[in-house]
């Protein structure tokens, strides 16, 4: 018994210690789990969960053959944490060997009393890899989206470009901003003690919505041909610039839209807004004699004229409301077809006078002048067609020769396509399909008829006259060997605002036509702004039409009408 007492005493002590210990643990547990539960839970949430905004990828832009014209790429941006950089001077010297930033500028940033500074943004991936390989303390890289236009200036006026924030600012990029833009999404990530992401919280928050891809009606090769030939013509003639549009006349699909001067959408920050304006849709010009196509169509449709109707051309000089109208070639009696073939101003004025103001105005509007074509590009102008009430004494005569009216190149292409396709005015368009990132078709654009300004018979008769313009008239230099071409030249004086009169030295030379004339597959409009020297449309613009057509026709597999004698044919 005497030995049991100390044992019991020890047991009591042990039990007491255990109870005390467990009691302490329990009280701490109650404190942490119940009393401080809300506060600590919030703290843990902050430490383990990281909210991140993930940007959805912007959709790409492709040509009609699926070739990339614009796409987003994830590229590195380099940042610094100045508080973690021990030797800013040395780090700056190391970085300047890799980055396109001066050492003193990097050092200045790294000496700032801030937790974060950008050193260089949206770099080439190679530069990012080289920065990472330096393993500099306080320097890191993050991935950001950057828009790339791999074909550089090709189609730049149509594509447009995006800003630093990735939003479309011009062209298709702007017009289809809501289609192309990816939707950003806030994602909650779980992190472990080392800061690594363990698992996204909730499967629905896995990723952002990417933007949709856009397929254009443009063909990259045709676009290249159009831009190259336009550039050559502008350089050769010393012109200010120009426009070439290649359109499929039966559908209104734009195959090429070249605007000169060009720009590189990858580097727009140094350029002015003037250089990226798409003049094919934003600028109206006086079309000159190309507008005689509409006057002729109206006269034929109204049955006022037939190709053999006679018109007296006043031997090259006629007075209209105290203004003398000249023909560049003096003529007496001409047939209606000759008036168009020789581009007689006096003949056109007489035909327009017979039509009268109301009918001329009605046909101009029916062919789409004075209203937007609704092509899917931003900034389109309606041009300028005044209503007859606002016309002066000379307006009808001016319009008959394509002056005193403002049209865009795309309006002209659409109007002439109506003659080419048998009388249907089509809506021109650039986007043919929209697909999601999995390639599923979301929307497909079909050709759309706006109205029918002339009958098929009028179109057929006019087409024959326009063929003769190229065969034996003012448009001979547009002739493509072995193909029938129909078209019309135009040379318009530009209005000099300072002199308040038409300039005698500044012209717009143009040619508009289609080929093959009997089964038109291409409508081509060529506009050359202020060519120097011989500025006639038939001299400056018609050869561009020929050079574009003779390259594009074989590319599209459009056969000639002429029989050929073959000695040997190889295929494949």
């Amino acid at each position, binding site marked *: 018994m005497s030995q049991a007492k100390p044992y019991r005493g020890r047991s009591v002590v042990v039990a007491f210690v255990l109870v005390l210990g467990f009691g302490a643990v329990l009280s701490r547990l109650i404190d942490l789990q119940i009393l401080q539960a809300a506060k600590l839970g919030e703290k843990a949430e902050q430490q383990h969960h990281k909210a991140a905004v993930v940007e959805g990828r912007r959709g790409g832009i492709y040509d*009609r*053959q699926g*070739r*990339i014209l614009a*796409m*987003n*790429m*994830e590229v590195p941006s380099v940042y610094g944490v100045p508080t973690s950089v021990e030797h800013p001077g040395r780090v700056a010297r190391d970085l300047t060997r890799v980055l396109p930033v001066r050492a003193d500028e990097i050092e200045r940033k790294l000496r700032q009393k801030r937790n974060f500074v950008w050193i260089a943004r949206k770099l080439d*991936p190679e530069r990012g890899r080289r920065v990472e390989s330096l393993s500099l303390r306080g320097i890191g890289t993050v*991935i950001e989206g950057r828009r*790339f236009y*791999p*074909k*550089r200036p*090709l189609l730049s006026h149509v594509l447009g470009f995006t800003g630093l924030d990735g939003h479309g600012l011009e062209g298709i990029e702007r017009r289809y901003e809501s289609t192309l833009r990816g939707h950003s999404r806030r994602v909650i990530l*779980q992190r*472990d003690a080392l800061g*690594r*992401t*363990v*698992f996204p919280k909730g499967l629905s928050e896995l990723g952002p919505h990417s933007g949709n891809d856009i397929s254009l009606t443009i*063909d*990259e*090769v045709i676009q*290249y*041909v159009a831009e*190259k030939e336009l550039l050559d013509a502008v350089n050769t003639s010393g012109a200010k610039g120009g426009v070439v549009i290649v359109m*499929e006349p039966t559908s209104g*699909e734009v195959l090429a839209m070249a605007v000169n001067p060009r720009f590189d959408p990858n580097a727009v920050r140094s350029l002015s807004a003037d250089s990226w304006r798409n003049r094919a849709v934003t600028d109206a010009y006086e079309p000159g004699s190309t507008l005689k196509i509409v006057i002729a169509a109206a006269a034929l449709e109204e049955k006022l004229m037939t190709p053999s109707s006679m018109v007296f051309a006043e031997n090259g000089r006629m007075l209209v409301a105290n203004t003398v109208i000249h023909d560049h070639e003096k003529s007496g009696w001409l047939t209606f077809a000759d008036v168009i073939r020789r581009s007689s101003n006096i003949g056109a004025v007489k035909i327009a006078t017979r039509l009268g103001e109301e009918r001329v105005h009605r046909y101009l509007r029916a062919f789409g002048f004075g209203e937007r074509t609704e092509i899917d590009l931003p900034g389109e102008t309606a041009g300028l067609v005044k209503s007859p009430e606002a016309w002066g004494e000379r307006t009808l005569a001016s319009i008959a020769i394509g002056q005193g009216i403002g049209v865009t190149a795309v309006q002209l292409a659409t109007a002439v396509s109506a003659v080419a396709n048998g009388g249907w005015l089509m809506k021109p368009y650039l986007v043919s399909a929209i697909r999601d990132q999995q390639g599923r078709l979301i929307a497909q654009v079909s050709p759309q008829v706006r109205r029918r300004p002339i009958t098929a018979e009028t179109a057929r008769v006019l087409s024959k006259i326009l063929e003769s313009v190229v065969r034996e008239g003012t448009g001979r230099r547009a002739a493509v*060997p072995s193909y029938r071409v129909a078209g019309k030249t135009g040379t318009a004086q530009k209005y000099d605002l300072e002199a308040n009169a038409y300039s005698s030295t500044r012209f717009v030379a143009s040619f508009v036509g289609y080929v093959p004339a009997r089964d038109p*597959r291409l409508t081509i409009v060529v506009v050359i702004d202020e060519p120097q020297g011989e500025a006639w449309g038939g001299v400056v613009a018609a050869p561009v039409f020929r050079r574009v057509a003779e390259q594009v026709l*074989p*590319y*599209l*597999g*459009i*056969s*000639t009408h002429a029989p*050929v*004698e*073959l*000695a*040997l*044919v*190889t*295929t494949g």
Partner: protein
Amino acid sequence: MRTGIALAVMSLVLLFVWERVDVVRVGYHIERLKSEKAALERERDELRVKLSGLTAPDRIARVAMGQLGMVRPRQGQVILVKVPAQTPDPTGPASMVLGLAKFASTKRSH
């Protein structure tokens, strides 16, 4: 009986712990794969942009004419021959057979 219940409870606890550990392990694995996927996608995009730039028509024309000494075919050297069996695609390029015709009178250009 009690031992059985204890074992069952213990098994359930262990199963729960194993499941939690496995979720974390799979989470790490998924994150690693996602990083790999993102890196591969970046590389793919980089290559696509590079390919697109290299196949640009102006570059091909420059290389063909400047470095390889190629010339544009002269008038009459390229002739398209209609093949009735083929349905021409109104939009696609060269949907007809492209024939290279040699005329007896046409000398080859170099």
